[in-house]
């Protein structure tokens, strides 16, 4: 997406005829608006949903907003990868890595439990439509489609877990190093 945008603008600016230039700028603006609805709206929805979820978990409002912002970043990374042709599981993996890094760093800075940030940011990654489709094809009795959907769902869930695992394990390793005393484990 970014590469396309750069090329487009470069082309536009190199054209001498200003009418063509204007019409192209108009076209590009329309395309940019499309990017905004394609990328911006899900980010907005996930932000609002994150805030509401934080209220359910009884988290203070300033932490909810910070965590929701992390969720938006994570959602953007996820969509950048998913909408440019990579598999859903890979996109979820990098989304989970992003939110995991964000929450580990920010929560340690602010000295609050890490899962307070992680739990909010990771909610938009939950593959709700995949789980639903799995259930629907099972109700319809289509076993082949069920197995395919189930494998997809499991792959996505596993990818999210792996993303969190990867970041948290590394940070835990770094953390154990500068702990002043080791406990029983």
């Amino acid at each position, binding site marked *: 997406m970014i590469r396309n945008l750069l090329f487009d603008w470069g082309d536009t600016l190199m054209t001498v005829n200003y009418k063509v230039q204007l019409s192209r700028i108009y076209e590009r603006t329309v395309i940019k608006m499309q990017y905004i609805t394609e990328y911006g709206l899900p980010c907005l929805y996930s932000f609002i*949903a994150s805030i509401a979820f934080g*209220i359910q978990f*009884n988290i203070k409002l300033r932490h909810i907003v910070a965590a929701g912002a992390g969720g938006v970043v994570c959602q953007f990374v996820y969509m950048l990868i998913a909408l440019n042709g990579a598999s859903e599981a890979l996109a979820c993996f990098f989304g989970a890595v992003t939110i995991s890094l964000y929450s580990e760093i920010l929560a340690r800075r602010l*000295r609050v439990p890490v899962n307070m940030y992680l739990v909010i940011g990771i909610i938009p990654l939950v593959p709700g439509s995949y789980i639903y489709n799995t259930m629907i094809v099972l109700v319809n009795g289509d076993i082949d489609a069920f197995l395919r959907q189930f494998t997809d769902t499991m792959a996505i869930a596993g990818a999210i877990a792996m993303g*969190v695992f990867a970041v948290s394990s590394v940070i835990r390793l770094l953390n154990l190093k500068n702990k002043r005393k080791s406990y029983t484990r």
Partner: protein
Amino acid sequence: MNSNDLLAVVTSIGSMLIEYGAEIYRVEETIYRIAESYGYSSGGKSVEVFAIPASLIITVDGGNGFPLTRTKRILSRGTNLDRVDKINNLSRFICAEKPEKNEILNNIEKIKQRHIYSYPVQVISYAVVGATFALFFGGNYRDALVAGVIAVFIRFVETLVAKIRPSIFFQCVLCSLMTASIAVIVSRLGFTDGFDKVIIGASMTMVPGVILTNCMRDFIAGDFLAGLYTLTEALIVAVGMAVGAAIGIAVFTKMF
């Protein structure tokens, strides 16, 4: 502080942490740290903790040949991450200041009284979650409206059902069945185009988010038993939601 007082303080702090949705390694580490700050890590004195999401076992050995053990069964767990944060701060305060037992118990009582959001705000937050997730998964504004209303119903049913303390599976089946039946009926009445986005959006309010993240973090920390416990719980919630929605869709699409 003698070992009896320490045991009382540490047990109530640990059980509160588990009940409010903290990870197990946080519970164990908090208890070890508090005990250590009172000198229970050397000179024949020691503390042993074993915690899983269903129970807490603590042994305090005061070095006099009579170790004390207390177990605490945890029957219901909720999610109140603000209180977890406050208990975290309290344990930091205990480690730094080493206060007396009464002061700690006063602080614990204060934390138990904390409420951030009132019940109406929570109900509204359910509606917002349902509506925005219906939009997020590609529904239109009518889908969002219906999903928001259903999410409010889910909240009411959850509070009603929680009073008779059924299994979590039953609760999920009931909520999910209600969601699916209302969504199918509304779509058959012609208000929404399909029922799938409504069901997905409204069901997202039941996603066990804290349980899932705690499960992952427990596995990372090496608490495999606790991780398995929470993983099982999350799977049972997921299966319950699927069963409820499946029954609702299968029955009500045939009926209407």
